[in-house]
């Protein structure tokens, strides 16, 4: 397909230099080890396979979160979002959660979404914390703008940290953003940010060999809890 590269470069938003997120491993409540690592742009088509079944789950706003995340990941894949990144959690190679965001400026981060594919293990909490760790400790930003679409997200981020309300509109829906500052982050860090580095070689090898996906029905059951029907 012919492409006007000059126009393409105009259409591509600015990309800041972004140091990589150093992978870590977290022990979950069930004793399993979750490897948290940064996704590569080339991983997006595979990741979308796990996002797709969540598009059809109304419970806890999974449909909205998934639809937006799907678009954000596609936009990253095809260079239509500014300075974006994606972190993922894997247990025994299986994708169990995804978080993403981007740099608004060098000093301000924009949190996008947190999608826990396996529930009940605080995977969302762990991955959201990893996302904030990336913004504050590795991208060295001053603050991150955050909104929640679900009551669960509100409880996890706004209340547990607790975040600071602002009147700054967030690009996800235009509602008022909440702010994670460096002061709030480092105060919350001892009780919310965990994980060990480096990732042991055997776990790393399993995680990077292949991103495994549960089938659609399993993902829906894990999220919607449709047992007994």
């Amino acid at each position, binding site marked *: 397909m012919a492409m006007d590269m000059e126009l393409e470069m105009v259409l591509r938003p600015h990309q800041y230099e972004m140091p990589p997120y150093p992978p870590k491993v977290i022990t979950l409540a069930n004793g399993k080890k979750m490897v948290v690592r940064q996704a590569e742009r080339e991983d997006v088509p595979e990741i979308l396979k796990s996002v797709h079944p969540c598009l059809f789950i109304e419970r806890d706003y999974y449909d909205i979160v998934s639809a937006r995340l799907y678009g954000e990941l596609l936009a990253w894949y095809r260079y239509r979002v500014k300075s974006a990144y994606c972190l993922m959690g894997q247990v025994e190679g299986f994708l169990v959660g995804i978080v993403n965001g981007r740099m608004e400026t060098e000093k301000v981060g924009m949190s996008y979404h947190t999608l826990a594919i396996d529930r009940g*293990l605080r995977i969302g909490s762990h991955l959201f914390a990893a996302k904030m760790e990336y913004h504050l400790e590795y991208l060295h930003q001053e603050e991150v703008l955050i909104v929640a679409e679900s009551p669960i997200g509100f409880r996890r981020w706004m209340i547990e940290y607790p975040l600071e309300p602002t009147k700054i509109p967030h690009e996800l829906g235009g509602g008022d953003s909440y702010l994670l500052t460096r002061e709030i982050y480092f105060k919350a860090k001892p009780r919310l940010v965990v994980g060990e580095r480096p990732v042991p070689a055997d776990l790393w090898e399993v995680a990077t060999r292949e991103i495994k996906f549960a089938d659609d029905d399993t993902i829906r059951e894990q999220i919607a809890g449709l047992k007994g029907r």
Partner: protein
Amino acid sequence: MAGTQHFRDVAVIGVGMIPFGRRDEDTLMDMLAWSSLKALDDAGLGDGGVDALYVANMGSGVIQHQTGLASALVDRLSLLPAAAESIENGPASGASAIKNGLLAIASGYCDTVLVVGGEKMREVTGWRATDFVATMTHPTSEYVYGITLPGMAGMFTRLYMEKYGVTREMLVSISIKNQAMGTLNPYAHVEMALSKEGIFDDPAAIVNNPPAADPLHLYDACPVSDGAAAVVLTALDKVKKPSKPPVVIAGFGQATDTHTLQERSDPTDLKAVTLAAQQAFERAKLKPADIHVAELHDAFTILEIAESEHVGFFKKGEGGKAALAGKTKLGGQIPINLSGGLKARGHPVGATGVAQVVDIVWQLRHELPKGRQVQNAQNGLTVNFGGFGNNVLAFVLRRVQE
């Protein structure tokens, strides 16, 4: 003990339960009806034959803005003109409803009674559900100060730790045991195994299992659940050719304690549990050592330990050690909460007391799969704990010898 005159023996001839959890798609009435139909089917009863219906529920008036559940359900089930009543006794509503059903038969007023307990709590946020449960605390000396049941349990745990040497490790052992059993129970709300490393030893445990009401942590508490369970009771002398081994309610007991915790001379002494269990054992002419399996009200892990002592399975201060030593697991001295308990099966408050009886009936019929079934179980105990121990019911159930 008052009221020891001879009663008609009452048997449980049908049981039914629906999976506990979050049931967004069902109304409370759907859940009550579905579990009732399962129990009626299990009992081999069709449309007729039920003289009375008792419905246990704590919060439909608050959460669903619906009252008169029994009147609605008796019509929904086409059981008209059977008598019908709703029973509200906090988290002990289920056992209270069974007790009322039992008395209706024992007195000769009825021959066959359907008892169903249900609650739909996930319709509101966890905060609102916690607040609704807290409405049973004293309005001016407890509730107004923001007390919740987890808060009470936290203070109780601290005292119990100081007085009896209970440790966090002992509490964690209850969480792990009961959630492991939940993975084997298709009716359980929580079907997720826990590891000691993940919720206690590893540095990540601070996030995985954060403090909830110190010294209790997240996994020390039962989930907020939707669910329903039902039993069909009948006079034993009316049971002619049972298709399943009948189980009788051999003994029951109920006792109360002060409304507020502060009025108790020793808040760690759950007198109502002791008294209710003693009454049940006395009526059944059995001792704690005769019990083969028990369902205790572990809304919080500490309660399983405390109740195991107060009903007489262990001496005071020994329950936690026994749990840690595996004495309350399947194959142990006295297996407790092989259903997963409230901790894993869940705690739809109005349903719990009924669900406990359903699980014990399955045990005494020897219908459960390997891994949950106590071999040759003959006698079982349930304890349904209302308020913070201010209204407690206990049942001793016995398999009828063929």
